[in-house]
């Protein structure tokens, strides 16, 4: 599903974020990416959905070579990858319904199937009765659930979450984790960068620790391993 070999990334300002990453993630896995701030977690995540290009090495996602991929093909890669961020990244002037439906409009889904599918995912994240609200009228946890609904609405094979609980209180965080586990149980691969020791140590999954641009640890059912 995801395969990286000897991946290096140096930004134009000279900062080296990744120093030779080799990793293999199979379909259906749930992977935490942990590590100190500035160690390269975000860069690692961004490489997967082609927000950044590596300086050296090879990346394959869903059997697509991201190095030779052309700009015009990037949108099609992203349609099979759901993304969730710490700051939600919802369209502020769109209602909850419109935010989620946008991902389906992009793939030119029929209006009837679109309505059905959007209400289905909103039900899944427990926001069916808030479809007409705009993001500003919702709490942080609710906004993150909208973002998740949008990420999974067109059945992606991979869901990437960059510190999805970073801005949320503990109760809301557990709620988000429950939804992510459900999505994973239905076969979607999940890659989640996080700073939450409690979550990593309670819901045991594969843990990839990135330090100084290198994979320091890669354990199944691993621990968070850092003191905050």
């Amino acid at each position, binding site marked *: 599903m995801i395969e990286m070999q000897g991946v290096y990334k140096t930004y134009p300002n000279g900062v080296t974020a990744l120093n030779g990453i080799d990793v293999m993630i199979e379909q259906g896995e749930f992977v935490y990416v942990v590590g100190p701030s500035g160690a390269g977690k975000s860069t690692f995540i961004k490489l997967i*959905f082609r*927000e950044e290009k590596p300086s050296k090495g090879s990346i394959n996602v869903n059997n697509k070579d991201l190095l030779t991929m052309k*700009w*015009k093909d990037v*949108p*099609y*890669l*992203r*349609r099979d990858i759901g*993304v969730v961020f710490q700051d939600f*990244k*919802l*369209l*502020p*002037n*769109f209602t909850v319904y419109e935010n989620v439906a*946008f*991902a389906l*409009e*992009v*793939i*030119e889904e*029929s*209006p009837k199937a679109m309505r059905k599918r959007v209400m289905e995912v909103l039900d899944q994240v427990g926001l069916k009765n808030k479809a007409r609200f705009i993001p500003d009228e919702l709490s942080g946890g609710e906004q993150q659930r909208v973002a998740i609904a*949008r990420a999974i609405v067109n059945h992606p094979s991979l869901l990437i979450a960059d510190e999805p609980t970073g801005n949320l209180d503990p109760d809301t965080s557990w709620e988000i984790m429950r939804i992510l586990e459900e999505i994973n149980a239905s076969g979607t691969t999940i890659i989640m960068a996080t700073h939450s020791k409690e979550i990593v140590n309670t819901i045991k999954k594969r843990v990839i620790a990135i330090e100084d641009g290198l994979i320091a640890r890669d354990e199944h059912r691993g621990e968070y391993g850092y003191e905050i």
Partner: protein
Amino acid sequence: MKFRTLKRHFREGAKNILRNSWMTIASVGAVTTTLILVGAFLVLMFNLNHIADKLEEDVQIKALVDLTADDAEIEAVGEAINKIPEVSSVEFSTKEEELADLVKSMGEEGEVWELYEQDNPLNHAYIIKATDPLDTESIAKKIKKIDNIENVTFGQEAVQNLFKFNQLARNIGLALIIGLIFTAIFLISNTIKITIMARKREIGIMKLVGATNGFIRWPFFVEGMLLGVLGSIVPIAVIVTGYYYISENVSAFKQFNFVELLPFSPFAWQISLIILLIGASIGVWGSVMSVRKFLKV
């Protein structure tokens, strides 16, 4: 692209007008202000041009044939004039007709001239019009060289001053219009820059969800077009009403019959269409330019 997606883009573009209400008001305001100015200058320029054309059309050359010429020679002169390529029409006027014209143009005083009917001192004449009035002078020179021509008149100085004035008026009008359109573009792109940060984030989010550049650009295109069209409503109303009053009042002063404005219909409607098209193009241009920068994400 499926047809329903095209419909979706138009719907989204229209919704954006409401969603970004402050930007809508600011952009429509900028378009309105400039289009009123552009419209007023267009009306002025088209009318100046019209008046100039009218005056130029009236320019004609009169070639007087020698009094001694016989019928065959008069005929030969006519043929020679006809052979000049820039000439559009040649009309022969006998000396009797010339006298009648003279008598008529003098009014009551002209009656004195009627005495000459028995012994007409005037020449037979050819009245010539040029295809392009600007060639009048060169045609006159060529006619002068033809045998049996006594004299050629076309009001040299008046005609040349008229041409100079017309040319100047046209150039100034054109320069003003171009200047105004650039001002409009500058104003509108500035207005759009104000909201660019919010839009930058939006476009980035759309790209994350897998939208292609075309998919993102379409609603912006529609939105810009609608902004331009909305911005041209007030200018069209102002210009049409204003022109209606002006043309009514000018035709009241019949003594200035050399100032003949373009008729209200269809001119007012043609100008409205031009304003609408300029408005829509400015809107589309401003909107599409503002998106372009953020599509490479």
